[in-house]
């Protein structure tokens, strides 16, 4: 961080406004992440129930002993979790990479439409998606099974929704958008001259891909893999809907069942915390891999600089198969799930699709009932408040801290704060939800927040690392001289920040805000642990409607109708906001005479904004990089 060491500090002894802001933001983020984790670890070592304020609390390793006593169960959970999360991560990555490659690097027709279709499922809450797959796969009435029966020779084949492989595939299908959104900028950002110099040195497409492209992309892809893995480990939706019947115990589900006690028993928080600790060790290892990978990726990016865009691959005869694959993917992730939901919303009970049924059995009352349901509107309002509030807190604190750290002299303090602020990606959502739950229980006698909307806002903000990383790299993109020029021109530090830094950071921050907002509206795992009927967001309310066990609320047709309405709303809000951002980013970038990457999504907008901050050094670094590849290919 030699540039950062050039930090200018006039009047070294007086802390500036910026310093104070950085320290405040750092403290907020530290408390947000450190307290819940500490409470969880303490709970693991203090008794079977809560760690404080109850008579049973005392220091012991009983919980780990119990865990060891049940080691057969433990190994079983570990094994099925590894198969479930690992398998689905690999599958989603393959799909995401393929789709990203098609949209960025080939001449496939309808590329913009394809990238839009991949992003659509992002807006559908995972709990809704999981429910839609359950409906699609129902052996009697599921539309997918119906379709399969139409294929000649497959009349007897029925997909079992509760088989373990099905569950893995479903999990992977619900999680393609996230790796896709991360891989697209990696592919777009790749310096085309590197490949071209390999081609000029006599390498064919295949060789270039193997010897230059993939090695260049590898660290970035590894980083995406780790994040997808941790995301998968933390999500409760698919295990909750499919896992209970399949008989396989997945970690997320295990944690969930441990704290939902049966009648008359005290929930086993201590044991659950011990489980959480063990899995935190696993994700910490994954996090270390992620850190190394991103460091390598950044190093490679800084060697290659910002080159021109890579050339596109001519598909030729492969156009049709590629398009077919995209169509099948879209059917599986968007069309059929939405259809299944819609069908479920207009039929009074599970019913196979037929034109007969369409004519005689359908009714549209569920939509009206949802719109007339006060609780729907109340939970929708809570969802927006929680998602908006947490996105604002996380983006605000993270941006200030990221700016402060990126510009500060590198010391042990700034380095550890940087690591810490990046670390929330290592915490699976189930663990975060559980740890937050414990924390609010523990502090409740002093600060009664448990079960409130405020608690949910705080809990959702734990995904602060997304905003932090984005803010950090966006700050590094703003050359320090731009600020120094403001100072020399007579602007105070605050004026410089307001007039130069803030406008340049704004597109990134706004794009990240939208991303976190949509994540927040979709969130199910965290409120599953934290919400009460008074504070529950729409995702939890919807789950109650489609879950046969929630006796009086059970109304699957209304649940499905609600899911559709909600999806439409999130789409409208999220897409409307993104559209605004990309419009601005495209406008600005084209005014600057630059080619802009696809700006159809939040990350696209961020990428466009990044591309738009121009870099006169790019040409130099590019020729250096070209030289290096020539050197490599000569060997």
């Amino acid at each position, binding site marked *: 961080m030699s540039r950062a*060491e*050039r930090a*200018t*500090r*006039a*009047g*070294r002894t007086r802390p500036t406004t910026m310093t104070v802001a950085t320290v405040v933001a750092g403290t907020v983020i530290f408390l947000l992440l450190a307290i819940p984790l500490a409470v969880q670890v303490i709970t693991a070592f203090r008794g079977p129930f809560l760690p404080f304020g109850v008579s049973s609390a005392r220091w012991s390793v009983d919980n780990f002993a119990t865990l060891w006593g049940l080691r057969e169960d433990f190994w079983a959970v570990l094994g099925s979790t590894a198969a479930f999360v690992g398998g689905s991560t690999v599958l989603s990555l393959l799909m995401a990479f393929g789709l990203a490659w098609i949209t960025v690097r080939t001449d496939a027709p309808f590329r913009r439409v394809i990238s839009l279709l991949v992003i659509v499922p992002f807006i559908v809450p995972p709990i809704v998606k999981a429910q839609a797959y359950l409906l699609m796969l129902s052996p009697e009435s599921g539309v997918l099974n119906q379709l399969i029966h139409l294929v000649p020779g497959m009349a007897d084949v029925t997909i079992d929704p509760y088989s373990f492989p099905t569950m893995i595939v479903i999990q992977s299908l619900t999680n393609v958008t996230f790796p896709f959104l991360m891989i697209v900028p990696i592919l777009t950002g790749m310096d085309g001259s590197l490949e071209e110099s390999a081609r000029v040195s006599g390498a064919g497409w295949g060789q270039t891909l193997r010897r230059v492209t993939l090695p260049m992309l590898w660290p970035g892809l590894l980083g995406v893999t780790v994040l997808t893995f941790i995301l998968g480990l933390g999500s409760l939706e698919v295990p909750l809907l499919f896992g209970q019947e399949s008989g396989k115990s997945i970690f997320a589900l295990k944690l969930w069942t441990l704290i939902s006690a049966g009648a008359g028993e005290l929930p086993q928080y201590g044991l659950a915390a011990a489980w959480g600790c063990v899995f935190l060790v696993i994700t910490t290892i994954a996090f270390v891999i992620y850190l190394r990978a991103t460091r390598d990726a950044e190093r490679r990016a800084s060697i290659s600089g910002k080159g021109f865009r890579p050339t596109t691959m001519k598909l030729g005869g492969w156009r049709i198969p590629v398009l077919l694959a995209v169509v099948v993917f879209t059917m599986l992730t968007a069309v059929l799930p939405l259809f299944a939901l819609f069908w479920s919303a207009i039929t009074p009970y599970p019913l196979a699709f037929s034109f007969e049924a369409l004519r005689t059995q359908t009714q549209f009352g569920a939509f009206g009932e949802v719109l007339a349901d006060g609780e729907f509107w109340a939970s929708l309002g809570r969802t927006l408040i929680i998602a908006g509030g947490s996105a604002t807190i996380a983006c605000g604190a993270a941006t200030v801290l990221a700016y402060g750290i990126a510009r500060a002299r590198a010391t042990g303090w700034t380095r550890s704060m940087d690591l810490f602020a990046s670390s929330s990606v290592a915490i699976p959502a189930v663990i975060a939800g559980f740890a937050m739950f414990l924390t609010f229980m523990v502090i409740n006698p002093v600060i009664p927040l448990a079960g409130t909307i405020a608690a949910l806002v705080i809990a959702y903000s734990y995904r602060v690392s997304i905003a932090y990383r984005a803010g950090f790299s966006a700050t590094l993109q703003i*050359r320090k*001289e*731009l600020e*120094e*020029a*403001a*100072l*020399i*021109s*007579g*602007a*105070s530090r605050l*004026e410089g920040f307001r*007039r*130069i830094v803030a*406008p*340049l950071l704004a597109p990134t921050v706004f794009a990240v805000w939208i991303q976190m907002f949509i994540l927040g509206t979709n969130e199910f795992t965290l409120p599953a642990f934290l919400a009460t009927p008074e504070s529950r967001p729409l995702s939890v309310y919807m789950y109650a409607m489609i879950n046969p066990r929630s006796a009086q609320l059970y109304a699957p047709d209304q649940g499905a109708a609600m899911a559709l309405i909600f999806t439409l709303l999130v789409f409208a809000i999220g897409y409307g906001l993104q559209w605004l951002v990309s419009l601005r980013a495209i406008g*600005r970038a084209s*005014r*600057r*005479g*630059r080619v802009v990457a696809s700006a159809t999504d939040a990350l696209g907008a961020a990428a466009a904004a990044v591309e*738009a*901050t*121009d870099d*006169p*050094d790019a040409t130099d670094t590019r020729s250096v990089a070209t030289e290096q590849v020539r050197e490599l290919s000569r060997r």
Partner: protein
Amino acid sequence: MTTTADMTEARGGGRLVVDGLEKHYRLDGAEVPVVKGVSFTIEPGTFTSLLGPSGCGKTTTLRCVAGLETSDGGVISLDGRVLSTGSEHVSPDKRDVGMVFQNYAIWPHMSVFANAVFPLQVSAGKLPKKQARQRAMEALELVQLDAYAHRPATALSGGQQQRLALARALAHRPRLLLLDEPLSNLDAKLRDTMRNELRSLQQRLGITALYVTHDQSEALSMSDRVAVMNGGRIVQEAAPKELYFAPADRFVADFVGRVNLIPAVVRDRDANGDALVEAFGTKLVTPCPAGSGTGAEVTVTIRPESVRWHEASVDRPNLLAARVARVEFLGEIVEYEAEIVHEQTTVGRIVARGAPMDSPAEGSSVFLELAPQACRVLAA
């Protein structure tokens, strides 16, 4: 142009005194000195260059003057106002200087006009709106960018961005203009044009300028004074011609232009008071080196263009027999390298330059004349 007159009027002063400037960086826990006691004075209205190889501390010195870097020792003052001591520092926005950065640092989210008017809108140089507008347009006119005022700043070419950076640095009429290798990102042709424009603008405005460069021809052609830096110190400060023809030491001689460095020993002194030194086994007449007596080891320097050649021996002092080893045609001049022959063995090499029409053939035997008044003797 009346506007130019306006711009000149309000400005004045600009006497910069840097005395014993020190700066170190912390690297892996150790303090690494980068600027080691640099002192120089710039008179109002003059153009001074800091010239030196990459990494010698020029940028650091300039940034200390700008206040972007806090110095660790020494005093910087501008028109008698102390800007920096080792412990107290006036912040950059209150120093009343303008600066052109190496990569221009044009704000990409603003128009050309917004960039230029910025210094007149912020706290230190804030002006009423109308006046600020007028001044910014004047500054843009100075660099012929007034027609582009409402373009986005990033829609400018490299040379135009550079001029915009200059306009922005001049808009608030600072006492001192700082420039850090402003031409290094331009192509050769544009660099020459900009060099002239920059110099004539500086003279027209009469502004004091401190210019950092590693390019000796830039420094020599533009400056009133040049300070040559090496390893964090100023090794010589002089007018360009003096620097070229009377370098203070081997480093300056070698860095500023090309030079032959000939090891020699002082033998005697002749009737005119000139020295007789022995080099290449031959006695040469040279100007008398200050303070080195008989037997002292010295270095005789002579520029390649001062070396003359003859086909046959002539009756002139300092004639050396040589064989032309290499002739290189460079366009406006020819450079050739000759091996000095003494008693049938090669004892050294001399590089010489001459007009292309009049050059010796490769492989021919010639006599080289190192005219005494063209030689300079430096301590070894």
